[in-house]
Protein backbone atom coordinates (compact mmCIF):
# COMPACT_ATOMS: atom_id res chain seq x y z
CA UNK A 1 0.00 0.00 0.00
CA UNK A 2 2.76 2.38 0.98
CA UNK A 3 4.76 1.52 -2.11
CA UNK A 4 1.75 2.19 -4.29
CA UNK A 5 1.29 5.60 -2.68
CA UNK A 6 4.90 6.54 -3.32
CA UNK A 7 4.59 5.34 -6.89
CA UNK A 8 1.47 7.43 -7.46
CA UNK A 9 3.06 10.48 -5.85
CA UNK A 10 6.21 10.13 -7.93
CA UNK A 11 4.29 9.80 -11.19
CA UNK A 12 2.02 12.76 -10.33
CA UNK A 13 4.95 14.95 -9.27
CA UNK A 14 6.85 14.20 -12.47
CA UNK A 15 3.81 14.93 -14.64
CA UNK A 16 3.12 18.25 -12.89
CA UNK A 17 6.76 19.34 -12.95
CA UNK A 18 7.34 17.89 -16.41
CA UNK A 19 7.15 21.14 -18.43
CA UNK A 20 9.70 22.69 -16.10
CA UNK A 21 12.02 19.68 -16.21
CA UNK A 22 11.73 19.62 -19.98
CA UNK A 23 12.67 23.30 -20.19
CA UNK A 24 15.77 22.51 -18.15
CA UNK A 25 16.66 19.53 -20.39
CA UNK A 26 16.19 21.54 -23.60
CA UNK A 27 18.28 24.41 -22.26
CA UNK A 28 21.20 21.94 -22.13
CA UNK A 29 20.75 20.65 -25.71
CA UNK A 30 22.08 21.96 -28.99
CA UNK A 31 19.56 23.29 -31.52
CA UNK A 32 20.27 20.36 -33.86
CA UNK A 33 19.57 17.86 -31.11
CA UNK A 34 16.27 19.56 -30.33
CA UNK A 35 15.27 19.25 -33.98
CA UNK A 36 15.71 15.45 -34.06
CA UNK A 37 12.76 13.08 -34.19
CA UNK A 38 11.30 11.67 -31.99
CA UNK A 39 11.61 14.69 -29.68
CA UNK A 40 14.40 14.00 -27.19
CA UNK A 41 13.88 14.15 -23.42
CA UNK A 42 17.39 13.66 -22.06
CA UNK A 43 20.30 15.69 -23.47
CA UNK A 44 22.93 13.51 -25.19
CA UNK A 45 25.79 15.88 -24.42
CA UNK A 46 24.59 18.38 -21.80
CA UNK A 47 26.29 21.76 -22.12
CA UNK A 48 25.82 25.36 -21.11
CA UNK A 49 26.30 26.89 -24.59
CA UNK A 50 22.71 28.14 -24.73
CA UNK A 51 23.19 30.11 -21.53
CA UNK A 52 26.21 31.84 -22.98
CA UNK A 53 24.19 32.62 -26.11
CA UNK A 54 21.42 34.23 -24.03
CA UNK A 55 23.97 36.77 -22.79
CA UNK A 56 25.04 37.48 -26.39
CA UNK A 57 21.48 37.85 -27.70
CA UNK A 58 19.74 39.91 -25.04
CA UNK A 59 20.96 42.07 -22.11
CA UNK A 60 19.64 39.49 -19.63
CA UNK A 61 21.82 40.85 -16.80
CA UNK A 62 20.22 44.24 -17.19
CA UNK A 63 16.74 42.70 -17.31
CA UNK A 64 17.39 40.82 -14.08
CA UNK A 65 18.73 44.00 -12.48
CA UNK A 66 15.63 45.96 -13.58
CA UNK A 67 13.31 43.30 -12.22
CA UNK A 68 15.15 43.14 -8.90
CA UNK A 69 15.19 46.92 -8.48
CA UNK A 70 11.50 47.27 -9.27
CA UNK A 71 10.38 44.26 -7.20
CA UNK A 72 12.45 45.34 -4.20
CA UNK A 73 11.09 48.87 -4.43
CA UNK A 74 7.53 47.54 -4.51
CA UNK A 75 8.18 45.29 -1.50
CA UNK A 76 9.68 48.13 0.56
CA UNK A 77 6.84 50.45 -0.46
CA UNK A 78 4.17 47.89 0.35
CA UNK A 79 5.68 47.03 3.73
CA UNK A 80 5.69 50.72 4.72
CA UNK A 81 2.22 51.69 3.45
CA UNK A 82 0.56 48.45 4.61
CA UNK A 83 2.15 48.52 8.09
CA UNK A 84 1.02 52.08 8.65
CA UNK A 85 -2.51 51.39 7.45
CA UNK A 86 -2.85 48.06 9.27
CA UNK A 87 -1.67 49.76 12.46
CA UNK A 88 -4.40 52.38 12.16
CA UNK A 89 -6.98 49.67 11.49
CA UNK A 90 -5.93 47.57 14.50
CA UNK A 91 -4.64 49.78 17.33
CA UNK A 92 -6.13 53.21 16.72
CA UNK A 93 -9.76 54.19 17.15
CA UNK A 94 -11.22 57.03 15.13
CA UNK A 95 -14.36 57.95 13.26
CA UNK A 96 -15.06 56.34 9.87
CA UNK A 97 -12.42 53.70 10.56
CA UNK A 98 -14.62 50.78 9.48
CA UNK A 99 -15.87 52.62 6.41
CA UNK A 100 -12.28 53.33 5.39
CA UNK A 101 -11.35 49.68 5.93
CA UNK A 102 -14.19 48.68 3.65
CA UNK A 103 -12.93 51.19 1.08
CA UNK A 104 -9.52 49.47 1.22
CA UNK A 105 -11.08 46.06 0.69
CA UNK A 106 -13.20 47.33 -2.21
CA UNK A 107 -10.01 47.81 -4.25
CA UNK A 108 -9.73 44.00 -4.34
CA UNK A 109 -12.86 43.86 -6.50
CA UNK A 110 -11.47 46.20 -9.14
CA UNK A 111 -9.39 44.32 -11.72
CA UNK A 112 -6.20 46.16 -12.61
CA UNK A 113 -7.02 45.65 -16.29
CA UNK A 114 -10.16 47.78 -15.88
CA UNK A 115 -8.01 50.75 -14.88
CA UNK A 116 -5.04 50.12 -17.12
CA UNK A 117 -5.92 52.68 -19.81
CA UNK A 118 -6.13 55.73 -17.50
CA UNK A 119 -3.10 54.49 -15.57
CA UNK A 120 -1.11 54.30 -18.78
CA UNK A 121 -2.23 57.83 -19.71
CA UNK A 122 -1.27 59.09 -16.22
CA UNK A 123 2.19 57.52 -16.30
CA UNK A 124 2.77 58.89 -19.80
CA UNK A 125 1.63 62.41 -18.89
CA UNK A 126 4.01 62.65 -15.93
CA UNK A 127 6.87 61.34 -18.05
CA UNK A 128 7.32 58.04 -16.23
CA UNK A 129 7.35 55.77 -19.29
CA UNK A 130 10.59 53.75 -19.36
CA UNK A 131 11.32 54.45 -15.70
CA UNK A 132 11.63 52.50 -12.47
CA UNK A 133 9.08 54.82 -10.83
CA UNK A 134 6.52 54.01 -13.51
CA UNK A 135 7.05 50.30 -13.02
CA UNK A 136 6.97 50.35 -9.21
CA UNK A 137 4.97 53.22 -7.72
CA UNK A 138 1.46 52.15 -8.90
CA UNK A 139 1.86 48.90 -6.93
CA UNK A 140 3.21 50.28 -3.67
CA UNK A 141 -0.12 50.13 -1.82
CA UNK A 142 -1.75 46.77 -1.13
CA UNK A 143 -5.19 46.07 0.31
CA UNK A 144 -4.40 42.38 0.59
CA UNK A 145 -1.18 43.07 2.50
CA UNK A 146 -2.96 45.54 4.76
CA UNK A 147 -5.62 42.95 5.49
CA UNK A 148 -3.01 40.30 6.27
CA UNK A 149 -0.98 42.60 8.54
CA UNK A 150 -4.10 43.77 10.33
CA UNK A 151 -4.92 40.15 11.19
CA UNK A 152 -1.40 39.72 12.59
CA UNK A 153 -1.48 43.03 14.51
CA UNK A 154 -4.79 42.05 16.15
CA UNK A 155 -3.03 39.02 17.67
CA UNK A 156 -0.69 41.28 19.62
CA UNK A 157 -1.85 41.57 23.28
CA UNK A 158 -3.47 44.87 24.14
CA UNK A 159 -1.58 44.88 27.46
CA UNK A 160 1.59 45.74 25.57
CA UNK A 161 -0.17 48.76 24.13
CA UNK A 162 -1.43 49.86 27.54
CA UNK A 163 2.01 49.40 29.08
CA UNK A 164 3.65 51.42 26.33
CA UNK A 165 1.15 54.21 26.84
CA UNK A 166 1.91 54.30 30.58
CA UNK A 167 5.61 54.43 29.77
CA UNK A 168 4.85 57.45 27.64
CA UNK A 169 5.85 55.89 24.29
CA UNK A 170 4.38 57.70 21.30
CA UNK A 171 1.94 55.98 18.97
CA UNK A 172 4.52 55.79 16.21
CA UNK A 173 7.23 54.53 18.54
CA UNK A 174 5.02 51.62 19.64
CA UNK A 175 4.54 50.62 16.00
CA UNK A 176 8.26 50.65 15.25
CA UNK A 177 9.63 49.14 18.46
CA UNK A 178 6.93 46.62 19.38
CA UNK A 179 4.39 45.87 16.65
CA UNK A 180 6.75 45.50 13.68
CA UNK A 181 9.18 43.10 15.42
CA UNK A 182 6.30 40.94 16.69
CA UNK A 183 4.67 40.74 13.27
CA UNK A 184 7.76 39.60 11.39
CA UNK A 185 6.24 36.37 9.98
CA UNK A 186 3.29 38.26 8.47
CA UNK A 187 5.63 40.93 7.10
CA UNK A 188 7.60 38.11 5.50
CA UNK A 189 4.47 36.82 3.81
CA UNK A 190 3.64 40.25 2.43
CA UNK A 191 7.22 40.73 1.24
CA UNK A 192 7.49 37.38 -0.54
CA UNK A 193 4.09 37.73 -2.09
CA UNK A 194 4.78 41.29 -3.25
CA UNK A 195 8.14 40.32 -4.73
CA UNK A 196 6.79 37.32 -6.59
CA UNK A 197 3.81 39.09 -8.10
CA UNK A 198 5.88 42.10 -9.19
CA UNK A 199 8.73 40.04 -10.60
CA UNK A 200 6.25 37.95 -12.59
CA UNK A 201 4.32 40.89 -14.06
CA UNK A 202 4.03 41.08 -17.82
CA UNK A 203 1.18 43.32 -19.05
CA UNK A 204 2.16 46.55 -17.27
CA UNK A 205 5.91 46.47 -18.03
CA UNK A 206 5.08 45.53 -21.63
CA UNK A 207 2.93 48.65 -21.93
CA UNK A 208 5.14 51.25 -20.31
CA UNK A 209 8.62 50.19 -21.45
CA UNK A 210 9.86 50.72 -24.98
CA UNK A 211 13.61 51.04 -24.51
CA UNK A 212 15.38 47.69 -24.51
CA UNK A 213 17.38 48.60 -21.42
CA UNK A 214 14.30 49.35 -19.31
CA UNK A 215 12.61 46.02 -19.96
CA UNK A 216 12.02 43.57 -17.15
CA UNK A 217 12.89 39.87 -17.31
CA UNK A 218 9.42 38.68 -18.31
CA UNK A 219 9.05 41.09 -21.22
CA UNK A 220 12.69 40.59 -22.18
CA UNK A 221 12.59 36.81 -22.57
CA UNK A 222 9.18 36.87 -24.25
CA UNK A 223 10.83 38.97 -26.99
CA UNK A 224 12.84 35.88 -27.92
CA UNK A 225 9.60 34.32 -29.08
CA UNK A 226 9.10 37.05 -31.64
CA UNK A 227 12.59 36.80 -33.18
CA UNK A 228 12.82 35.74 -36.80
CA UNK A 229 14.29 32.32 -36.18
CA UNK A 230 13.08 30.69 -33.02
CA UNK A 231 16.01 29.05 -31.26
CA UNK A 232 14.37 26.82 -28.68
CA UNK A 233 17.47 25.91 -26.72
CA UNK A 234 18.19 29.61 -26.32
CA UNK A 235 14.61 30.42 -25.26
CA UNK A 236 14.58 27.62 -22.69
CA UNK A 237 17.92 28.73 -21.25
CA UNK A 238 16.41 32.22 -20.87
CA UNK A 239 13.31 30.74 -19.29
CA UNK A 240 15.37 28.85 -16.70
CA UNK A 241 17.47 31.93 -15.88
CA UNK A 242 14.34 33.98 -15.31
CA UNK A 243 12.54 31.29 -13.30
CA UNK A 244 15.42 30.40 -10.96
CA UNK A 245 15.02 33.41 -8.61
CA UNK A 246 11.31 32.76 -8.10
CA UNK A 247 11.83 29.01 -7.66
CA UNK A 248 14.50 29.74 -5.06
CA UNK A 249 12.05 32.05 -3.32
CA UNK A 250 9.45 29.29 -3.35
CA UNK A 251 11.82 26.81 -1.70
CA UNK A 252 13.10 29.30 0.89
CA UNK A 253 9.83 31.03 1.68
CA UNK A 254 7.37 28.23 1.15
CA UNK A 255 5.79 28.56 4.56
CA UNK A 256 5.19 32.31 4.24
CA UNK A 257 3.93 31.92 0.71
CA UNK A 258 1.45 29.22 1.66
CA UNK A 259 0.18 31.35 4.53
CA UNK A 260 -0.46 34.15 2.06
CA UNK A 261 -2.22 31.98 -0.51
CA UNK A 262 -4.49 30.32 2.00
CA UNK A 263 -5.39 33.70 3.48
CA UNK A 264 -7.04 34.51 0.19
CA UNK A 265 -4.58 35.63 -2.42
CA UNK A 266 -5.10 36.06 -6.12
CA UNK A 267 -2.50 35.19 -8.71
CA UNK A 268 -2.13 38.31 -10.87
Amino acid at each position, binding site marked *: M*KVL*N*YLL*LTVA*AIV*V*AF*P*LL*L*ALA*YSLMSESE*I*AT*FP*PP*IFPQAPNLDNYGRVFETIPIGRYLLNSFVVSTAVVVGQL*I*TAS*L*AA*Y*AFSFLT*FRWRDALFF*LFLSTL*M*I*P*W*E*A*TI*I*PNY*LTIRSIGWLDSYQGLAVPF*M*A*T*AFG*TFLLRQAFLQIPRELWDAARIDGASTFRFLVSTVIPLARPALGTVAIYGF*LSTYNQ*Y*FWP*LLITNQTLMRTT*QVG*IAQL*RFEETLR*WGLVMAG*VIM*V*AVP*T*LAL*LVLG*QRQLIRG*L*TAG*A*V*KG
Partner: protein
Amino acid sequence: MGWTRRDARSFGVGAGYLAPSLFLFTVFVFVPLGRTIYLSLFNTRSTGEPTSFAGVDNYTELLASENFRTGLVATGLFTLYTVPVGIALGLVLAVLLNQRLRGINVFRTMMASTIAISAAVGSLIWLLLLNPSLGLFDYLLSRIGIQGPDWLLQPSTAIIAVSMTTIWLTLGTNIIVLLSGLQGVPEEIYEAARLDGARGIRMFTRITVPMVSPSLFFLLVVDTIAVLQAFTQIHILTRGGPVDSTRVLVYGVYLDAFVNFQFGYASAQAVVLFLLVLALTIIQFRFVERRVHYQ
Protein backbone atom coordinates in the same frame (compact mmCIF):
# COMPACT_ATOMS: atom_id res chain seq x y z
CA MET B 1 -23.09 63.24 15.65
CA GLY B 2 -21.04 66.37 16.14
CA TRP B 3 -17.29 66.18 16.13
CA THR B 4 -15.52 67.07 19.35
CA ARG B 5 -12.00 68.35 19.23
CA ARG B 6 -10.83 64.93 20.42
CA ASP B 7 -12.69 63.19 17.57
CA ALA B 8 -11.03 65.46 15.08
CA ARG B 9 -7.63 64.85 16.62
CA SER B 10 -7.92 61.06 16.63
CA PHE B 11 -9.27 61.16 13.10
CA GLY B 12 -6.32 63.27 12.05
CA VAL B 13 -3.88 60.74 13.52
CA GLY B 14 -5.68 57.77 11.93
CA ALA B 15 -5.93 59.47 8.56
CA GLY B 16 -2.23 60.27 8.77
CA TYR B 17 -1.37 56.58 9.00
CA LEU B 18 -3.74 55.74 6.15
CA ALA B 19 -2.62 58.63 3.96
CA PRO B 20 0.14 56.90 1.95
CA SER B 21 -2.11 53.98 0.98
CA LEU B 22 -5.13 56.18 0.41
CA PHE B 23 -3.13 58.48 -1.82
CA LEU B 24 -1.90 55.61 -3.98
CA PHE B 25 -5.34 53.97 -4.16
CA THR B 26 -6.88 57.28 -5.17
CA VAL B 27 -4.34 57.96 -7.91
CA PHE B 28 -4.02 54.42 -9.28
CA VAL B 29 -7.35 52.71 -8.52
CA PHE B 30 -10.33 54.94 -7.73
CA VAL B 31 -9.71 57.86 -10.07
CA PRO B 32 -8.67 55.57 -12.95
CA LEU B 33 -11.83 53.49 -12.53
CA GLY B 34 -13.85 56.70 -12.75
CA ARG B 35 -11.81 57.80 -15.74
CA THR B 36 -12.35 54.48 -17.49
CA ILE B 37 -16.10 54.96 -17.16
CA TYR B 38 -15.77 58.60 -18.24
CA LEU B 39 -13.62 57.76 -21.28
CA SER B 40 -16.10 55.05 -22.30
CA LEU B 41 -18.68 57.81 -22.87
CA PHE B 42 -16.47 59.82 -25.20
CA ASN B 43 -14.90 59.73 -28.61
CA THR B 44 -11.16 59.96 -28.19
CA ARG B 45 -8.18 61.15 -30.16
CA SER B 46 -5.48 58.57 -30.87
CA THR B 47 -3.40 60.17 -28.10
CA GLY B 48 -6.10 59.45 -25.54
CA GLU B 49 -7.74 62.86 -25.02
CA PRO B 50 -11.52 62.82 -25.15
CA THR B 51 -12.85 64.90 -28.07
CA SER B 52 -16.64 64.80 -28.08
CA PHE B 53 -19.32 63.31 -25.88
CA ALA B 54 -20.53 60.03 -27.34
CA GLY B 55 -23.09 58.97 -24.76
CA VAL B 56 -23.66 55.25 -24.99
CA ASP B 57 -22.44 55.12 -28.61
CA ASN B 58 -19.34 53.11 -27.67
CA TYR B 59 -21.55 50.58 -25.92
CA THR B 60 -24.07 50.22 -28.75
CA GLU B 61 -21.20 49.89 -31.19
CA LEU B 62 -19.74 47.23 -28.91
CA LEU B 63 -22.96 45.23 -28.73
CA ALA B 64 -23.33 45.32 -32.49
CA SER B 65 -19.73 44.32 -33.11
CA GLU B 66 -18.80 40.85 -34.26
CA ASN B 67 -15.46 41.12 -32.45
CA PHE B 68 -17.11 41.72 -29.12
CA ARG B 69 -19.44 38.75 -29.48
CA THR B 70 -16.65 36.36 -30.46
CA GLY B 71 -14.70 37.87 -27.57
CA LEU B 72 -17.43 36.98 -25.10
CA VAL B 73 -17.66 33.46 -26.51
CA ALA B 74 -13.89 33.06 -26.25
CA THR B 75 -13.93 34.35 -22.67
CA GLY B 76 -16.74 31.94 -21.77
CA LEU B 77 -15.03 28.93 -23.34
CA PHE B 78 -11.70 29.85 -21.78
CA THR B 79 -13.34 30.00 -18.31
CA LEU B 80 -15.29 26.80 -18.88
CA TYR B 81 -12.26 24.83 -20.06
CA THR B 82 -9.94 26.16 -17.38
CA VAL B 83 -11.68 26.59 -14.02
CA PRO B 84 -13.54 23.29 -13.43
CA VAL B 85 -10.73 21.10 -14.76
CA GLY B 86 -8.11 23.05 -12.84
CA ILE B 87 -9.99 22.71 -9.56
CA ALA B 88 -10.81 19.02 -10.08
CA LEU B 89 -7.19 18.22 -10.90
CA GLY B 90 -6.03 20.25 -7.93
CA LEU B 91 -8.37 18.34 -5.61
CA VAL B 92 -7.20 14.92 -6.78
CA LEU B 93 -3.56 15.90 -6.34
CA ALA B 94 -4.22 17.54 -2.97
CA VAL B 95 -5.89 14.35 -1.68
CA LEU B 96 -2.84 12.42 -2.87
CA LEU B 97 -0.54 14.87 -1.06
CA ASN B 98 -2.60 14.84 2.14
CA GLN B 99 -0.88 11.77 3.61
CA ARG B 100 1.50 11.33 6.48
CA LEU B 101 4.46 9.84 4.67
CA ARG B 102 8.18 10.31 4.99
CA GLY B 103 9.43 12.83 2.46
CA ILE B 104 5.94 14.07 1.56
CA ASN B 105 7.22 17.66 1.64
CA VAL B 106 9.44 17.02 -1.38
CA PHE B 107 6.38 15.98 -3.38
CA ARG B 108 4.41 18.96 -2.09
CA THR B 109 7.11 21.40 -3.17
CA MET B 110 7.41 19.77 -6.59
CA MET B 111 3.69 19.92 -7.29
CA ALA B 112 3.33 23.41 -5.87
CA SER B 113 6.22 24.62 -8.05
CA THR B 114 3.97 26.31 -10.60
CA ILE B 115 3.08 28.94 -7.96
CA ALA B 116 6.46 30.51 -8.59
CA ILE B 117 6.29 30.24 -12.38
CA SER B 118 5.28 33.40 -14.20
CA ALA B 119 2.69 33.35 -16.96
CA ALA B 120 5.38 34.42 -19.45
CA VAL B 121 7.73 31.59 -18.53
CA GLY B 122 4.90 29.03 -18.50
CA SER B 123 3.60 30.20 -21.86
CA LEU B 124 7.02 29.95 -23.50
CA ILE B 125 7.44 26.38 -22.25
CA TRP B 126 3.98 25.37 -23.47
CA LEU B 127 4.68 27.04 -26.80
CA LEU B 128 7.47 24.50 -27.21
CA LEU B 129 5.43 21.56 -25.86
CA LEU B 130 2.61 22.27 -28.31
CA ASN B 131 4.84 22.83 -31.32
CA PRO B 132 3.59 20.36 -33.95
CA SER B 133 7.00 19.25 -35.22
CA LEU B 134 9.32 19.68 -32.21
CA GLY B 135 6.90 19.43 -29.33
CA LEU B 136 6.45 16.36 -27.20
CA PHE B 137 2.71 16.76 -26.81
CA ASP B 138 1.73 15.72 -30.33
CA TYR B 139 4.45 13.07 -30.35
CA LEU B 140 3.01 11.45 -27.20
CA LEU B 141 -0.49 11.66 -28.69
CA SER B 142 0.76 9.96 -31.87
CA ARG B 143 2.16 7.11 -29.74
CA ILE B 144 -1.37 6.35 -28.53
CA GLY B 145 -2.71 6.63 -32.05
CA ILE B 146 -4.07 10.17 -32.01
CA GLN B 147 -3.12 12.59 -34.74
CA GLY B 148 -2.30 15.76 -32.76
CA PRO B 149 -3.51 18.98 -34.31
CA ASP B 150 -1.51 22.10 -35.01
CA TRP B 151 -2.76 23.49 -31.70
CA LEU B 152 -2.17 27.19 -32.12
CA LEU B 153 -3.19 27.47 -35.76
CA GLN B 154 -6.74 26.14 -35.53
CA PRO B 155 -9.46 28.24 -33.90
CA SER B 156 -11.06 25.28 -32.11
CA THR B 157 -7.82 24.04 -30.56
CA ALA B 158 -6.07 27.37 -29.88
CA ILE B 159 -8.44 28.17 -27.02
CA ILE B 160 -7.85 24.66 -25.61
CA ALA B 161 -4.09 25.19 -25.81
CA VAL B 162 -4.38 28.47 -23.91
CA SER B 163 -6.62 26.76 -21.36
CA MET B 164 -4.18 23.87 -20.80
CA THR B 165 -1.38 26.34 -20.21
CA THR B 166 -3.53 28.25 -17.73
CA ILE B 167 -4.59 25.09 -15.88
CA TRP B 168 -0.94 24.21 -15.41
CA LEU B 169 -0.08 27.73 -14.23
CA THR B 170 -2.84 27.79 -11.58
CA LEU B 171 -2.39 24.17 -10.48
CA GLY B 172 0.12 25.01 -7.74
CA THR B 173 -2.19 27.55 -6.13
CA ASN B 174 -5.17 25.20 -6.35
CA ILE B 175 -3.22 22.36 -4.75
CA ILE B 176 -1.96 24.48 -1.87
CA VAL B 177 -5.37 25.99 -1.10
CA LEU B 178 -7.12 22.60 -1.23
CA LEU B 179 -4.38 20.88 0.75
CA SER B 180 -4.74 23.38 3.56
CA GLY B 181 -8.51 22.85 3.37
CA LEU B 182 -8.02 19.08 3.66
CA GLN B 183 -5.68 19.50 6.59
CA GLY B 184 -8.42 21.35 8.43
CA VAL B 185 -10.74 18.32 8.31
CA PRO B 186 -10.66 16.50 11.68
CA GLU B 187 -9.43 12.91 11.52
CA GLU B 188 -12.47 11.75 13.58
CA ILE B 189 -14.80 12.51 10.69
CA TYR B 190 -12.93 10.10 8.43
CA GLU B 191 -12.83 7.57 11.26
CA ALA B 192 -16.57 7.77 11.79
CA ALA B 193 -17.23 7.43 8.05
CA ARG B 194 -14.90 4.46 7.88
CA LEU B 195 -16.82 2.78 10.70
CA ASP B 196 -19.98 3.37 8.70
CA GLY B 197 -18.37 1.49 5.86
CA ALA B 198 -17.39 4.40 3.58
CA ARG B 199 -14.44 3.66 1.29
CA GLY B 200 -12.69 4.98 -1.78
CA ILE B 201 -14.89 6.93 -4.18
CA ARG B 202 -17.79 7.06 -1.73
CA MET B 203 -15.58 8.54 0.97
CA PHE B 204 -14.32 11.06 -1.54
CA THR B 205 -17.74 12.27 -2.76
CA ARG B 206 -19.62 12.03 0.55
CA ILE B 207 -17.00 13.22 3.02
CA THR B 208 -13.98 14.84 1.38
CA VAL B 209 -15.72 17.05 -1.18
CA PRO B 210 -18.34 18.49 1.23
CA MET B 211 -15.72 19.08 3.90
CA VAL B 212 -13.46 21.12 1.60
CA SER B 213 -16.34 22.93 -0.07
CA PRO B 214 -15.28 26.30 1.43
CA SER B 215 -11.90 25.95 -0.32
CA LEU B 216 -13.57 24.79 -3.54
CA PHE B 217 -15.88 27.77 -3.44
CA PHE B 218 -13.00 30.14 -2.75
CA LEU B 219 -11.09 28.78 -5.74
CA LEU B 220 -14.13 28.98 -7.97
CA VAL B 221 -14.30 32.72 -7.36
CA VAL B 222 -10.57 33.39 -7.42
CA ASP B 223 -9.77 31.23 -10.47
CA THR B 224 -12.65 32.64 -12.51
CA ILE B 225 -11.54 36.19 -11.80
CA ALA B 226 -7.94 35.26 -12.64
CA VAL B 227 -9.03 33.75 -15.97
CA LEU B 228 -11.00 36.88 -16.83
CA GLN B 229 -7.81 38.87 -16.29
CA ALA B 230 -5.44 36.52 -18.14
CA PHE B 231 -3.45 38.42 -20.73
CA THR B 232 0.08 37.04 -20.88
CA GLN B 233 -0.79 33.53 -22.11
CA ILE B 234 -2.86 34.97 -24.96
CA HIS B 235 -0.23 37.52 -25.92
CA ILE B 236 2.60 34.99 -26.05
CA LEU B 237 0.77 31.95 -27.44
CA THR B 238 -1.77 33.29 -29.93
CA ARG B 239 -1.98 37.10 -29.94
CA GLY B 240 -5.76 36.72 -29.94
CA GLY B 241 -5.84 34.56 -33.07
CA PRO B 242 -6.37 32.55 -35.16
CA VAL B 243 -9.36 34.47 -36.54
CA ASP B 244 -10.06 36.06 -33.14
CA SER B 245 -10.75 32.69 -31.50
CA THR B 246 -8.71 33.65 -28.43
CA ARG B 247 -9.47 37.36 -28.46
CA VAL B 248 -10.85 37.32 -24.90
CA LEU B 249 -12.23 40.48 -23.28
CA VAL B 250 -8.91 41.60 -21.74
CA TYR B 251 -7.14 41.09 -25.03
CA GLY B 252 -9.80 43.16 -26.77
CA VAL B 253 -9.12 45.99 -24.34
CA TYR B 254 -5.41 45.75 -25.14
CA LEU B 255 -5.86 45.60 -28.91
CA ASP B 256 -8.36 48.44 -29.16
CA ALA B 257 -6.50 50.72 -26.75
CA PHE B 258 -2.84 50.09 -27.48
CA VAL B 259 -2.82 48.79 -31.02
CA ASN B 260 -5.82 50.56 -32.60
CA PHE B 261 -5.65 53.62 -30.29
CA GLN B 262 -9.42 53.77 -29.80
CA PHE B 263 -9.27 54.57 -26.10
CA GLY B 264 -12.97 55.36 -25.65
CA TYR B 265 -14.09 52.18 -27.35
CA ALA B 266 -11.54 50.13 -25.40
CA SER B 267 -12.66 51.76 -22.15
CA ALA B 268 -16.22 50.57 -22.79
CA GLN B 269 -14.84 47.02 -22.94
CA ALA B 270 -12.86 47.62 -19.73
CA VAL B 271 -16.10 48.69 -18.03
CA VAL B 272 -17.76 45.46 -19.19
CA LEU B 273 -14.82 43.52 -17.77
CA PHE B 274 -15.15 45.33 -14.46
CA LEU B 275 -18.90 44.71 -14.26
CA LEU B 276 -18.38 41.05 -15.11
CA VAL B 277 -15.87 40.57 -12.30
CA LEU B 278 -18.14 42.44 -9.90
CA ALA B 279 -21.26 40.49 -10.90
CA LEU B 280 -19.47 37.14 -10.70
CA THR B 281 -18.21 37.91 -7.23
CA ILE B 282 -21.68 38.87 -6.05
CA ILE B 283 -23.52 35.98 -7.75
CA GLN B 284 -21.08 33.39 -6.54
CA PHE B 285 -21.22 34.71 -2.99
CA ARG B 286 -25.00 34.78 -2.92
CA PHE B 287 -25.86 31.55 -4.68
CA VAL B 288 -22.97 29.19 -4.25
CA GLU B 289 -22.20 30.00 -0.65
CA ARG B 290 -25.56 28.68 0.54
CA ARG B 291 -24.67 25.16 -0.55
CA VAL B 292 -21.26 25.29 0.99
CA HIS B 293 -20.59 23.43 4.20
CA TYR B 294 -18.97 25.49 6.93
CA GLN B 295 -18.02 24.00 10.24
